[in-house]
Structures are given as C-alpha cells and as structure tokens.
C-alpha cells in the first residue's frame, strides 16, 4: 500500500481520457453542425523529472494536447492531474497559482515575444503578474535567468527584434523558467530554428532539466529530436494514441504500422545505407469526420477485417509498451 502511494507521488502529470472537440457553428442561430475532433481520448503520464516526447504529423492534435493540459484551452472531457489535483476542475484562483508550476515554450520565437516589450520586461513579466519580489529583486532574477539561458544580462533593455531566432527562443525559455516551474510543455521548441541552433537549444533544455529537475512534455514532429530528448515517446494520429513506449523500445521495436512508417521516413546521414521507405498513401483524413474503427486504417498497408469496424483497444506488449492495433493483437 505504502509502495503504491509512493509510486503515485512520483507521477507529476497524469492525463486520463482527454477529449477536445472544437464545435463547428453555422448559421444565424449558431447551430452546432459538427465538431473537429482534435483530441479524442488520450491518456498518458509523466514521472517527475522525465520527458515525454509527443509525436505526430501536422493536424494530429499534439499541440492541442499541450494547450489543454495548461488550460489555455478548455477541454471537452477528461482529466489532467498535476500532483494528483485535477487541473480541469480548478477554480480561477487555484489555476493562477498553478501557472507558477506549469509553463510553456512556444514554437515561433518571433510571435511568442511581445515586440513592444524590452527583453527584461518579457522575462520578468511572470514575476510582476504574480507579485513576486520587489523591483530590485525582480531585476536580479531576470539577470540571473538571462545568464542561465546563455544571454548577456546587459541586453535586458533590448527589444526582441534585435535578437536572432535562437536567442529569442532562449528569451522564451527564460520567461518559462522565471517562476521555477515543475512542468514545462515544450511545443515544438526547435522546429522553427536552424539545425545548428536546434542542438544548442536542445542541449540547453536538457541542462536545465538536470539542474532544476524539470518535467517536460516535448511536442515535436522531428523524430531525431524526440529520440534525443525523450525518456518515453507517445505517437499520435488524428487525435488518437497509436503507440507509446520507452524511448529505446519504440525506436528499436516499433510495432504500430504508423510508427513504422514514421520511423522509415527519418533520413539516415549515410549514402550507403539503402532504406526501405514506407510511403503512406493519401492525406491525413479530416478530423471532422474521422474514419470508423482504427483511424489509421485508410492509410494502413496491413488493414484487415476488424480495422474499419471497431476501435482497437490498447494492448500491452510488456515493458511498458502499449500499441493500439489489431495486427499486434493477432500476433
């Protein structure tokens, strides 16, 4: 019993059956004619100090997952537990306090910084909003944060447009760190950066994780990046979970046909390696009207009898590896 409680305490984030539908409203009376099923029943958990990589192609709903957990969007259904407390049931006052513990790093280093604020004000805004410290203390904290992310504190009066993309991303990271959060949603934090800068920012994120015992939900579509940073990986397709496993397991032994296709698309920097690419046919179907049964069956090369009829259940194949696929069930 005691052991169980202990194991629970180690889970910082627990998401249970998260659903987010965007209603489609038409006509003068605002009739709901349908819904975009951006996220349709996703569950996962992240232990403290670990990184979960959330992968999927554009439109798979991975960004929506991040935003709803932070309550930047209201969920349709489900639970998101932060240290055992349901984020979705929190009152505004509780939510405000929670914001100190949960932060986000954005994809676009240009759009995520207010162009009229000097960098020091951007990084110090969380402290100001939460009334932490006086002017002097806030200023010291800002300088400290700038040093932590590798920016010169002298530049705190400069404006965002004076910095490069990588430097701006560091500003965004410093802002996220300002209140010493426990959990950070990194929403494609490097996909807008040059490859050479990507590695610097990723190294920084890893350094910070070690230093401050941070927990990351790392959203990305670049598998090489995810492989590098994640302890565990979850693959999403059309708002649904396809496969989730520990990092090594997923990359060495992908079981879901979709994961296999994704992995086969990762370029290998060696001209002699002849790789068999699995080319997916067609486009990702509309999340307004997702396919029946397994949402991936329209593009799956192994599809058979039950695939287009009923949703597959998650199957545990051992060592914390779960797959939502009939093919695996058959074997």
């Amino acid at each position, binding site marked *: 019993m005691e052991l169980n409680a202990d194991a629970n305490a180690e889970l910082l984030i627990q998401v249970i059956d998260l659903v987010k539908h965007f209603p489609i409203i038409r006509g003068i009376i605002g009739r709901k004619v349908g819904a975009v099923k951006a996220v349709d029943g996703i569950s996962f958990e992240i232990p403290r100090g670990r990184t979960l990589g959330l992968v999927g192609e554009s439109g798979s709903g991975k960004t929506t997952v991040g935003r709803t957990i932070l309550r930047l969007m209201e969920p349709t259904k489900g639970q998101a537990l932060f240290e055992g407390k349901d984020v979705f049931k929190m009152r505004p006052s509780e*939510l405000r306090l929670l914001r100190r513990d949960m932060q986000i790093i*954005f994809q676009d280093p240009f759009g995520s910084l*207010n162009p*009229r604020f000097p960098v020091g004000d951007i990084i110090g805004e969380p402290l100001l909003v939460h009334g932490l410290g006086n002017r002097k203390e806030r200023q010291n904290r800002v300088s400290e944060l700038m040093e932590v992310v590798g920016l*010169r504190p002298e530049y705190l009066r400069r*404006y965002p447009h004076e910095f490069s993309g990588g430097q701006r991303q560091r500003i965004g990271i410093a802002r996220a760190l300002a209140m010493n959060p426990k959990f950070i949603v990194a929403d494609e934090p490097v996909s807008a950066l040059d490859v050479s800068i990507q590695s610097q920012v990723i190294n920084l994120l890893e350094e910070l994780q070690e230093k401050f015992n941070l927990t990351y939900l790392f959203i990305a579509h670049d598998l090489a990046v995810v492989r590098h940073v994640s302890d565990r990986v979850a693959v999403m397709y059309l708002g649904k979970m396809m496969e989730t496993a520990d990092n090594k397991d997923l990359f060495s032994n992908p079981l879901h046909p979709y994961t296999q296709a994704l992995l086969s698309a990762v370029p290998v920097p060696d001209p002699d390696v002849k790789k068999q690419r699995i080319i997916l046919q067609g486009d990702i179907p509309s999340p307004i009207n997702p396919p029946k049964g397994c949402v991936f069956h329209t593009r799956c090369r192994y599809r058979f009898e039950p695939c287009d009829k009923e949703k597959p259940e998650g199957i545990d194949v051992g060592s914390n590896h779960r797959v939502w696929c009939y093919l695996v069930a058959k074997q």
Partner: protein
Amino acid sequence: MALDSIFSVELAPSFSYWQMVWTRFRKHRLAMFGASVIIIMILLCFVAAPIITATTGYHYTSMDLPNRYALPSGAHWFGTDDMGRDVLTMILYGGQVSIEVGLISALAAVLIGSLVGVVSGYFGGWIDEALMRFTDVMMSLPYLPLYLVLAMAFGPGFWTLIGIFVGFGWMGDARLVRGVVLSLKNMEFVEAAKAIGASPWRIMLKHLLINSMAVIIVSTTLLIGGNIVGEAALSFLGLGIQPPQPSWGNVLQTASGYIFAPGNGPWLIFYPGFFLFLTVLSFNFMGDGLRDALDPRLKGYR
C-alpha cells in the same frame, strides 16, 4: 561556459522603437511642416494671445465702435471687425477654443473607441456581437440632424460640443482597434501572457493596446483635425460656441454677414478661414507622416 562563447556576440547599437519612429518622421517633409505649424499655432493661441492682451489691452470683449472695419495697420495687424475688435486677437482666442475642442474630443473618443474595440476583439462571442451591433447602430444614425437636436436640447456650448463629438466619434476607432486586436490576439505572445497567469485586463492593455498604438495615434491625429472642422461647422450654424466667446467657427459666422461691409469687411472671413484651414491641413499632414513613421506597413492606409 561553452554557451557563453557562442552567445557573447555583440549586438548592434540599440535603437528603441520610438527612436526609429522619430528618424522616419523627421524625413517626412509634409509631416514636419504640419508638426511645426501645429506647434506655432498652439504657441500663438495659448501663449501669444494673453501677451497681446497684456501689452495692448486688446481682448475679444474690448470693443472700439468708432474704429470699425479698420484695414490692417501697425496697431491692428489684421484690422478690426464689425465691433472694432482686433481681428488677430479674436482669431487667437478663437483658436484656443477650437483647438481645445478638437484635442479633448478626439482624445476622449479614441479612448472610448479603443476600449470598446479591444474588449470586443479580445472577448469575441456575444460581447463582440453586442458591441459591434451597437457600433453599427451609432454609425448609421444621421449625425447632422442629431447634432442639431442635441445641441438644442443640452444648450449649445463647449461641453455639449465635446459630448457630441465624443458620442459620435468613437465608432471608427472601435472598429479599427477591434480589427487590429483580432489579428493580434492569436499571436503566441498573447497565449504566453495567459500561460503566465496575466489577467484579461493586463493582456488587453499591456499586450494588445500597446501593439495597436500605431493605428490609434494616427487616427487620433486625423480625428483632431476633423473635430476642429466639426466645431467650426456647428459654431457656424450657431449651435456651437456662443459669442462673445470666439471660436474659429463663430468668428467665421459673424464675418459672413459683413462680406459687403466697407473697409476690412470682405477680409474678415479670410483670416479665421485661413487659420482653420492651415491647422486642419497640418493635422492631416502630421497624421500621414505619423502613419508612415509608426508602421511603414500601413502606408497608404487610412
């Protein structure tokens, strides 16, 4: 530290946003002309007028009936009017009122309009719907007859005039600001502000309105000019500023009755008209220049 060596690259000397605006504004000839005229005009009306009164005793209440319609001379640079008052003094005191009405009403209208616009754009939904339909209604009212009725109902005067201009002047800005806010509110820096727990008011004032300043400042400038003309029009119709308190509008109105008077008569309409024209033109020039300087992307937009 390894990171340090990579990121200790020196940045170019800093130019703040307002420094860049000033650099661009200074290069705009018409705008600089407009700004200079406005400054001179304000100095003339608010500083020179009391000095003239103090040194010569001329005031808009000091009549000199034997000396009516005197042509310009060393004693009266613009001559005298139908009651022997110094025309220059009349115009400068009139300018005080006209400029005050223009400034106060434009600032108040823009303030209200911006707030309506930012609330409407940020919250969206039924709040947006309600505010924008109200704006539509206000915009479709036939304003001139309403001006007349309201001026009569509240009694013509300085504050009635400002009330009318504010009441019927905020809608343009409300729409303008709402449009800008709609394009800004989905930017990630607004989401970032939400994520750190900033209140809606903070987001609206500190993030959205600050980034709408370009259009707000430009439209304020243009509105000041427009409201000065509006004051003149209403005063000309006898529904604005009431004599003996002069304003450019009612000085024009009085003058229009003496076009065929002897001596200085025909000129009486020229001086206030010219001052009015020059001031409004200058505000418009300055508005154009500010628009180009504040946000070069807005060029050609009004």
